[in-house]
């Protein structure tokens, strides 16, 4: 099982096979290499009751939340980076629209360490963090822990095991080995924290020649690879395309009221040239 190759399949097949209603799933990407098109496929297939996890939920999470796919959000910073607020996320929390959204809120350091613990097969991670803030009062997954060697009181956060991790990478080879570079965020940790994983890639190549700071995910830790050129748009894919900054600003207008968002959603569901 562990040395089995990842399978290269169409995106719709991968999402249908790997992601089920009620799953805990992270579509990770720290404002770079965000698996946006995969998120749109999740909306099209009408997944529900998902627990969505991500350090930096942005536009595609706003879309998933507005479309009613999520029951809960585990996160550390929810905004439209460089633009402002996420209006669907705010509407869900402030007005319970389209349905109530439970939240579990961390700092980046805390949530990153929750993936690290899961990737390492440990029950929790230890860190210096959260002391004196109001976060522990509202987030059950933050607790004090005493160092058995020095007696110092530190903070523990539990491993966050995912059912599915979805990430975007620049490329894979024909065997399904995956390579990503540039700012690689928490994607490796998310994939290693997950039971199943899907990587969308810009292209398949014969050979993965070395790149600076590249992260390679061997084929046997990835369940499925799907070829999705431009799959991170409107975010960046280092050496492939820049961020579509205008779209981030447009999203602010589209998402601001329920009606314009509804029209966007209808268009996406009908599969008409999925906007962004």
């Amino acid at each position, binding site marked *: 099982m562990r040395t089995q190759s990842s399978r290269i399949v169409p995106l719709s097949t991968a999402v249908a096979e790997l992601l089920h209603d009620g799953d805990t799933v992270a579509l990770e990407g*720290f404002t770079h290499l965000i698996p946006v098109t995969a998120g749109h496929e999740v909306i099209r297939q009408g997944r529900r009751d998902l627990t969505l996890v991500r350090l930096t939920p942005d536009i595609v999470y706003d879309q998933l939340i507005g479309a009613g796919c999520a029951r809960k959000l585990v996160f550390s*910073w929810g905004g439209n980076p460089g633009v402002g607020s996420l209006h669907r996320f705010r509407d869900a*929390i402030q007005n319970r629209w389209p349905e109530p959204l439970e939240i579990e809120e961390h700092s980046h350091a805390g949530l990153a360490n929750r993936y690290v613990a899961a990737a390492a097969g440990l029950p929790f991670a230890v*860190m210096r963090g959260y002391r004196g*803030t*109001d976060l522990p009062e509202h987030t059950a997954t933050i607790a004090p822990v005493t160092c058995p060697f020095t007696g110092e009181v530190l903070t523990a956060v539990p491993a966050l095991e995912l059912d599915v991790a979805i990430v975007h990478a620049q490329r894979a080879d024909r065997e399904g080995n995956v390579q990503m570079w540039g*700012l690689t965020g928490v994607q490796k940790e998310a994939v290693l924290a997950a039971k199943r994983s899907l990587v969308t890639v810009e292209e398949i190549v014969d050979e993965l020649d070395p790149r600076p700071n590249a992260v390679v995910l061997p084929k046997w830790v990835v369940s499925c690879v799907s070829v999705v050129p431009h799959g991170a748009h409107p975010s960046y894919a280092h050496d492939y395309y820049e961020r579509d900054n205008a779209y981030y600003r447009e999203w602010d207008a589209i998402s601001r009221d329920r009606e314009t968002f509804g029209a966007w959603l209808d268009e996406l569901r009908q599969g008409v040239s999925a906007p962004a």
Partner: protein
Amino acid sequence: MICDDWTTDEMMTVAAARALPDGVACFVGIGLPSTAANLARRIHAPELVLIYEAGAIGAKPGRLPMSIGDGILAETADAVVTVPEIFNYWLQPGRIEIGFLGAAQIDRYANINTTVIGPDYANPKVRLPGAGGAPEIAASCGEVVVIVRQSTRSFVERVDFVTSVGYGGGPGDRERLGLRGGGPTRVITDLGVLEPDPETCELTLTEVHPGVDADQAREATGWELAVADDLRASAAPTAEELDALRELERSVAAA
């Protein structure tokens, strides 16, 4: 050369840039902190080490990054690391001298709220983006510089939610909480500069920008603002500072 034609936001950004000494490592957030830190690198601090939470250490972007994921940060960095590494290996042990933060609300003891507006966390009046890297930046950097526009909405007696700790409830609280960094040393606003009183830790107005007086700052503060006896006046932005700042801002507007 002094240039008379500038906005209060420009004055604020220039004052924030001046607060950053050359040669130190600075943990920078996107927005006003990033603009000010990049301005400092262009004017008086060419050796300022910019650290972005997405994993860029020593980034030297030729324009302002559009977000923390901007490839220009990776391309110009001395080192590129992962997000867990930036927090666990670089921030947590106290390797970073200055943390540079924004705020939605700040209180008398420089505690910061970026989480919710309103008394009820479960039913907020306004849901803000949340913590991001700020709680650990505020806890672990050698010192913290805050940049925020001053008004009675942002400068409140008590923050609705403590996202990042300044001086807690007053002297001794940081030590009691085991926070190893020194805490906020300067709060830079569009009206002036506030610094914690060495005895009480209470934010005290120590500097006003040109054309601003202490009463204006008092009126824009939600508590009875302490004013230093030797209140200073900031130097107006120079033409060099304004040119560099406007060029940086054009680079983002053009994107």
